[in-house]
């Protein structure tokens, strides 16, 4: 068992050293703050409560902005919807606290909570835009929100004090003591650390982190594994808005008076700028970015000669960052770190796998240069269920001999033979999945429905074009059912309707007798229906394991609120997903060795297998495969065929939409031929092949 696999087995990563390393940026930041506090104690003397003690006031301000940035990163970094409206949410929080405390006699703390909740509530109608429109619409609407909130601040003078604003806010009391600026700073630091840790836990330790990124980058795949994209976006926005409202509420007592000028739109752009500088979608990004950039507005405001250029400076910095450092400081450092540390398997993979491995098997010239054997070797290692990563670094590949084929890879001297050997090897590995791996399909038995999947009289047209004209298809449980037909015959449309991505005009889809709601792709997996896509839908930056764990999403119970806390059931769920994902990697023949490799580095054929593993991780009863063999070469197609056979053996129902007639003839128990949106013929391979209409449709006789 390699070291990497062992680490993978221990997801919690206990041990003081590990905890220290993981929290290094946090500890470093707290250290700097501590030094700052010591310095201000020396520097300022006793006069801490005065707003004039500028360093302390600014430190408070920095903590508030950092809080907003941490929240902003959630919706704009992880979920990918850039909000220009966070200053409005901040203002809403501040005004809520000001109004509730000065006019309604509320205490500060309940008013603060109300401020956060009101900001979250205000964000919800804006988030509705994400229901059916893309992210940039959301960005514009959030910009409009800032304008409208500013209007209302001025207009509703009875409530907000109009242009003059609200005066006379006092610093809150905590445990009976009035907080001075220093005490307040401690409080804000504590809030920042708490929010940072909660969100980090949510993103890194719960199923929601993967769901966020999937919704951002591969929405169809997110739906297919049971993530409801809109609910995820809307909840992330509400959480982000709550944090912004909280920060605004905490801000209100600091200056003691707030007015519409306290919340200029440029601050919204500054928040985005800071998160961008740190790195969107990285946990430390907003903290680092805000720490680096916070002095910028101060410097610009202090220098009379520079003050006039402050917008210009923001704009130029923003522009330069977008063009030259779009991943931000933290993102850039992470990339550099990956390059430098070059974990053994990662490098070996990048060199042998991604380049020669994929190409040499196709390109005879590369093979002739003697790389064929190397490529084959790499291929075998990748397919070995365990020990692959250590094999590349220190141990010979033969270490995992119990699953390797008898043919020694070194015999594959020339390229062509190498490919054949690889194909056989794939077959050998794939036809005998580890018994442990088949566990995940163990729930297949015990259903008494006559059909696994039924499409009953499905009709669908796009505008004037009729795509499906009453297609009825019945798939028996435990069979491989192929749907073939010429281009434009409606195969993929049918698959998209069955999995809920398209809404049929008429007709029903039933899975094991249960009717599936129209046009709700995120529900399909709950009916036991999983699918893959024609185009790659992986998250290339995430590891193979994380990608497959995304497939477990629908089997999770951890809510977004629970996901923020290190609760036992959150840890249990993660362990469970982890084990399932590893089993799925075994099952598709990729093995556990590549679990920690970034998915984007795998060759094409293996990315396909990762997608199948992800589909299997949802423990489906019916698996829909959309042209799984396109782009694979002969050896890979054979390996794939063995995989499908073993899945069928395990009781899974497989529906195959495919062009490759050879593969279909070999695998399918039943074949349905579609032509021009209708069923042309159905039956086993011999029946279909001898049907004159099929011959006509295919050969154009």
């Amino acid at each position: 068992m390699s070291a990497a696999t062992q680490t993978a087995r221990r997801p919690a990563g206990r041990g003081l050293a590990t905890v220290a390393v993981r929290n290094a940026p946090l500890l470093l930041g707290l250290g700097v703050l501590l030094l700052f506090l010591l310095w201000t104690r020396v520097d300022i003397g006793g006069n801490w409560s005065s707003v004039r003690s500028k360093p302390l006031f600014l430190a408070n301000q920095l903590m508030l902005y950092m809080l907003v940035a941490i929240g902003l990163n959630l919706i704009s970094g992880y979920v990918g919807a850039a909000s220009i409206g966070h200053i409005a949410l901040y203002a809403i929080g501040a005004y809520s606290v000001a109004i509730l405390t000065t006019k309604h006699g509320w205490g500060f703390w309940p008013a603060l909570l109300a401020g956060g909740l009101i900001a979250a509530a205000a964000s919800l109608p804006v988030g509705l835009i994400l229901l059916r429109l893309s992210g940039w619409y959301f960005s514009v609407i959030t910009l409009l929100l800032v304008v409208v909130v500013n209007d209302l601040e001025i207009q509703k003078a009875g409530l907000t004090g109009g242009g003059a604003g609200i005066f006379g806010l006092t610093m809150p009391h905590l445990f009976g003591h009035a907080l001075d600026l220093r005490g307040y700073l401690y409080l804000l630091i504590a809030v920042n650390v708490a929010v940072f840790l909660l969100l980090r836990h949510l993103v890194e330790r719960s199923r929601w982190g993967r769901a966020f990124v999937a919704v951002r980058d591969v929405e169809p795949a997110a739906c297919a594994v049971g993530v409801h994209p809109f609910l995820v976006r809307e909840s992330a926005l509400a959480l982000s808005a709550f944090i912004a409202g909280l920060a605004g509420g905490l801000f209100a007592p600091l200056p003691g008076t707030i007015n519409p000028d306290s919340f200029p739109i440029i601050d919204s752009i500054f928040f985005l700028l800071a998160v961008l500088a740190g790195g969107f979608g990285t946990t430390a990004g907003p903290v680092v970015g805000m720490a680096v950039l916070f002095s910028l507005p101060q410097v610009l405001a202090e220098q009379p000669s520079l003050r006039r250029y402050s917008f210009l400076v923001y704009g130029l910095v923003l522009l330069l960052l977008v063009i030259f450092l779009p991943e931000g400081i933290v993102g850039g450092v992470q990339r550099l770190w990956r390059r430098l540390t070059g974990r053994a398997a990662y490098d070996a993979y990048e060199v042998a796998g991604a380049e020669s491995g994929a190409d040499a098997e196709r390109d005879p010239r590369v093979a002739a240069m003697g790389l064929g054997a190397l490529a084959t070797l790499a291929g075998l290692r990748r397919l070995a269920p365990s020990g692959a990563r250590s094999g590349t670094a220190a141990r010979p590949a033969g270490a995992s001999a119990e699953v390797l084929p008898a043919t020694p890879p070194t015999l594959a001297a020339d390229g062509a033979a190498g490919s054949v050997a690889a194909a056989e090897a794939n077959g050998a590995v794939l036809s005998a999945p580890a018994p442990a791996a088949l566990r995940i399909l163990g729930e297949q038995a015990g259903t008494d429905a006559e059909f696994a999947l039924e499409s009953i009289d499905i009709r669908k047209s796009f505008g004037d074009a009729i795509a499906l004209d009453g297609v009825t298809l019945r798939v028996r449980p435990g069979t491989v059912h192929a749907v073939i037909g010429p281009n434009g015959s409606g195969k993929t449309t049918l698959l998209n309707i069955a999995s809920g991505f398209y809404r049929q005009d008429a007709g029903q889809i039933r899975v094991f007798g249960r009717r599936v709601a129209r046009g709700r792709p995120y529900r399909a997996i709950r009916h036991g229906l999983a699918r893959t896509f024609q185009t790659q839908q992986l998250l290339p930056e995430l590891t193979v394991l994380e990608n497959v764990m995304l497939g477990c999403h629908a089997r999770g119970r951890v809510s977004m609120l629970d996901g923020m806390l290190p609760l036992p059931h959150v840890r249990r769920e993660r362990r469970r997903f982890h084990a399932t994902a590893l089993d799925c990697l075994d099952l598709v023949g990729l093995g556990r060795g590549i679990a920690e490799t970034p998915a984007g580095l795998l060759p094409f054929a293996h990315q396909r297998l990762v997608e199948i593993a992800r589909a299997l991780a949802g423990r489906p009863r019916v698996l829909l495969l959309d042209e799984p063999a396109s782009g694979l070469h002969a050896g890979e197609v054979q390996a794939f065929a063995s995989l499908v056979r073993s899945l069928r053996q395990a009781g899974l129902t497989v529906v195959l939409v495919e062009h490759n007639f050879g593969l279909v003839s070999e695998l399918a128990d039943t074949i349905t031929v579609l032509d021009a949106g209708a069923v042309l013929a159905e039956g086993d391979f011999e029946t279909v092949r001898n049907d004159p209409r099929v011959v006509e449709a295919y050969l154009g006789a």
Partner: protein
Amino acid sequence: MNSFLTDVFIPALGIGALYGLVGISFNLIFAPAGTFNFAQGQIVMLGGLLALSFYQQNGWPVLLALVAVMAIGAAVALAEERIAVWPALRRDPHGIGWVLSTLAVFTIIQNLAILQWGTTPQNVKSFPALSVSRHDVFGLQVAPYHFGVLLIAIAITVALYLFARRSAIGRATAAVAQDRDAAALRGVNVRLVISLGFVMGGALACLTGMLAAPLTLATVNVGLTFTFRGFTAAALGGMGDNTGALTAGLALGLMEQLTLRYWQGGYVNLVILLALLGLLLVRPEGLFGQAVPRRV
């Protein structure tokens, strides 16, 4: 009734036509590039301020001023496309890079305009035949300005329609709007089409700013308002649909005038935002746009 016509309806036509034109200028960029230009309102604002300098202060003939203003608008938008939009768009067309970079251009233009013109709103005298003061027209006391702007907006919409249908580059733009990759495969120079979209969008935005100046005053503060209204017109009309944008712009003008008359000016933005949100929830493709099936 007459006062409704002269105080609400007819001003709504003129102002609405301006909003429609900004909406169309968004469309000209959106169709080929698939991006929304957050700096567009600032280019409109620039048009008004340039008109102030050229036409009002330097006394240039109105046509010369018009050509110069449009040329500068085109140049600014082209520079924006080359420097800010294309690098981000090429890296990731679906990411938030271009949102941030056009926001950057928004702040840069804002600052440069303040440095050049200051923040005090200034009056720009009406253009010939586009007087903003009221005259007796068919027995009604109205400003010819509103009719003139409406006619210009209709003429531009028709011209753009013909351009899109009849000219090769117009058809190429439509092809890029529909499927960028397929258009590129068929030999369309996508980069050029996108640049042209920005050039036309920038020129039209600046022209609109100049047209608006006698009414709104020339000031650095109108940018955000025009972004607000122009986007709303474009989105309500259906992104990419110019006739829709003009129609929606007129509806917005009416909505604004009604709010001003029967409620308060401070609520205009609120009313428009609520109307926009409500409509987009029911019809995300806008009033006149066509539903596009999602690709899987």
